[in-house]
Structure formats: C-alpha cells, structure tokens
C-alpha cells in the first residue's frame, strides 16, 4: 500500500478546504486511452447498493464526526488531481528498475484494486479516522464477486481490505509507506455479502517502521472473524507531504 490512498485523500481534502463539495476534486483529469470518462465519484458516500445496515453504520459514524474527533475519509477509484503526479514521480524514482518495465500507455488505464468493481459487486467500504486514538474503523460490505469457498469471502479479499485499512492508518501517520509484512489469522470464515467492521490501530512507530494491528468483527462486535498485524516502512521520511495536517484540517468546525 503506497501513496495512492494519500493522493486520494489529498485530492478530496483540497476540495473541502477550497469549499468545493467533497464528491468532486479540482485538478486535471487523467487522460485515458479508452473513451471512458474519468469518474471522480467519492465511493465512500452512500450509494444504492449499500444495504440498510451499512447506511445505519455510516450515519452513526458521521454523527461521531460532528465534534471533530472522527474524520470521514473519502475514496476515489482513480487519481484525478495534480498531486497524483508528485506521487507517481516519487514512486518511479524510488523503484527505477521496476519503473522501466511499466507500460506507460497502460499506466493511465489503472484503477485502484479496491475500486475496480461495479457498484455492489466487490468492495464497498467507508473509513473513519480518529486522530487522538490513532485508529481507523472501516465499515466493509463485500459483494458476490469476492467469493472463495462457496458462500464465503476469499481469504485474499479479506487480506486486501485489511491491507487497505492498516495501510491508510500507516499513511496518515507516516506519509508515503510500503507494506513490509502482513500476518493474518483467520478465526472464522466470513459469510459472503455480509457487513463487517475492520478496526485498525497504530501500535508503535520505531524510526521508519510503523506497526499497525487490526481485527475484523461482526457489526455487533460479538463475533471475531480475523486478527492481523502489519509492518509498514516509510519510504522517505523527509517527504511527508504533511498528510496529517491536511487530514486534521479537513474536519468541519465545531
């Protein structure tokens, strides 16, 4: 998990600070080879495919955001802001050999994996961040295209959501980071198309290392499905992009 999420958050937050509605962000759209228009939809706002339970949870957390202790994090499928060029340049400078292998034509067709599905078929989720406690709660409603064993989510789908959540936790505190280790213990298989809460917590920062742990629970918190620990590495401590300040400054005034 690298700066992609940060770019998304930055794009939306710039929009918020400049008074634009959160769903759209300013800046040039990426050119696509296909005729498809770049979608600037914020996928972390309610949509028709969200179940009633998901909406209820969204409303509960939005209430918690009113006093500024929690922040709702926006989520786009593509990076459509000027800032994204900085991230792209940085990452490609950091991995020059790998960067050479990238098909530049194909580059503009990219989509972040967790937003690559049609509405309701894949990952539907919204994240809320609490800065004082350094934790994120992600409300996740997975769709029928995330199946592993019949009737259950694929282990990889859960791993992806865990990586996305702990990754965002690491990014807010550490800037541009890369997943180094991911250790997941599956306690119970999760029924397909159910809603779960992914709770992630920043445990420690040791120099360039960030340790984040998380668990996956049922909405009523009675069933523990999964536990995970992760290690992230800051790629370049100097280039922090002041993400934390941006995230905190986006909270609506009390």
């Amino acid at each position, binding site marked *: 998990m690298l700066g992609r999420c940060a770019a998304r958050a930055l794009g939306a937050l710039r929009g918020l600070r400049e008074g634009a509605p959160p769903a759209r962000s300013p800046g040039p759209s990426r050119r696509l080879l296909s005729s498809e228009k770049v979608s600037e939809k914020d996928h972390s706002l309610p949509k028709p495919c969200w179940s009633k339970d998901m909406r209820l949870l969204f409303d509960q957390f939005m209430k918690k955001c009113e006093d500024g202790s929690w922040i709702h994090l926006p989520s786009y499928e593509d990076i459509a802001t000027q800032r994204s060029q900085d991230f792209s340049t940085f990452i490609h400078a950091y991995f020059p050999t*790998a960067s050479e292998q990238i098909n530049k034509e194909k580059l503009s067709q990219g989509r972040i994996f967790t937003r*690559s599905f049609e509405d309701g078929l894949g990952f539907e989720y919204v994240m809320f961040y609490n800065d004082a406690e350094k934790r994120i709660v992600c409300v996740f409603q997975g769709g029928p295209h995330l199946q592993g064993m019949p009737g259950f989510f694929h282990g990889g789908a859960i791993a992806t959501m865990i990586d996305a959540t702990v990754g965002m936790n690491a990014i807010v505190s550490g800037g541009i980071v890369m997943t180094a280790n991911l250790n997941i213990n599956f306690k119970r*298989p999760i029924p397909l198309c159910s809603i779960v809460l992914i709770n992630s917590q920043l445990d420690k920062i040791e120099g360039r290392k960030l340790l984040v742990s998380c668990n996956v629970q049922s909405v009523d918190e009675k069933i523990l499905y999964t536990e995970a620990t992760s290690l992230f590495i800051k790629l370049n401590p100097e280039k922090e992009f002041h993400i934390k300040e941006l995230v905190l400054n986006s909270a609506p005034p009390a």
Partner: protein
Amino acid sequence: MMRRGFQAAATLSRLRALPGAPRILPILNPAAAFGSSIDSRISRFCPKKTDFKDYALPNASWCPDMLSLYQEFLEKTKTDGWIKLPSFASNREHIQGLKLPTGLAVTPDNSDCRIITRSLQVEGQGYEHAIFFNPSEKKSVCLFQPGPYLEGAPGFAHGGSLATMTDETFSKTAYLAGEGLFTLSLSIRFKNLIPVGSLAVLNVSVDKIEDQKLYMSCITQTRDQKTVYAKSSGVFLQLQLEQE
C-alpha cells in the same frame, strides 16, 4: 453463521459427538484416511469434458514472458508429472457433486457469485494467471500477470492483489494435496513491487501436514529469479467435502 472457530473444528474432530451437543461442525474420524485420494480429487477438479469456461488459457493480454513460461510448463505436463489446473468462474464449478460440510454451507446458491480471481472479466484487466500442480512433489507454480485494475501505487500491483493470488494458489494446492479447505493463517513479507503487466512467478510447496493442518510456503519472484517480490507462508485447515 458459524458459532465456533477453526480451533474448535480441529478439536471436535478428535472427539465423538457428545449427546445433546449441537452438531454445528462436521465430526471427522481421524482413524480413517481422508475421504478422497489425491487422484480422485485431481480428476474431479480437472474434468476431461466440461461446459465451464477455463480462464487459465493464453489470451492476447499475456506478455511474451508469460506465454513462453506457460508453454514450458505445458511441455512438463507431458513428461514431468505436472498438471495444468483449469480455472472456472467459481469454486462451485470445481467441486461439482460435492458441497461444504453440513453447518458450513450457509448461503444459498447464487449464480451471481464469482471467485475474486476471475471477477474482472475483460482480458488483461485483472488476475491473468495459470496454475500448474505437481502431485508427487506437492508443489505448485502460478504464473501471475497483474492487470491495471489491480493497482495500488500507480503502475504497480496492490499488495492485496498479491495476497489474493498467494492465498488462491495456496488454496488450490492445499485442496489437491490434502483436502485443505479454509485459510487459517496467511503471512506475507513484501520485498519489491510488481509492475502491472509483468510476469510474477509464485512457487508454492507443501512443507508438512499434521494435526489436520497443511503448512505451505511460497516465494514470488521474476522468472529469472533475480528479483524477489515476496515470501509467504500459509496454513490451511483440512476438512472433507460431502456428497451433495
């Protein structure tokens, strides 16, 4: 909804059903060998004739590296005891005539469901992959080319997509090698980013089978083995599928 976890499943398998106790999970008789043989699992998994579409076949999106390595392994299926695994839209299609043990088959059959690794259907967009399995060595090789819809950092595959491909390769290996059905744990150490559209080779081996669990390890690297992308390990729970 499962009320007990995997640890309970493993423990229950060593006890007889207690009178009055709700029978939520399958009781396995450890004295009997597991229900099916490796050969019967392989022949059910790789049907000679089927209407289901096999997605693990070359297409226009495959890079030259992937095509040539695929051909290399195809040759090995003729001489060295390797088997090319078909890849259908859902695991249900792979276990025709069988179902999950009573108590676990919770969701009604839904034709909408697809396995995550075959969810993005436009060629080249998602998980282009093919898995080869060697029954006698209990090893697998997965040829994986991540598409642009699997991105994390611009131009590179999302860590979650590699976690998914790794779990999937472990899963197919665990099932064929020893009736492994569910992931108990997955541990990945990421070393380098995989450029979108390039070939990553996952080498999986079964290290041991004990206590109703399969222990596997995997190394993901470039074809020439000069760049290691990740090292992983996985533990799967053995459970028998039941006749439908």
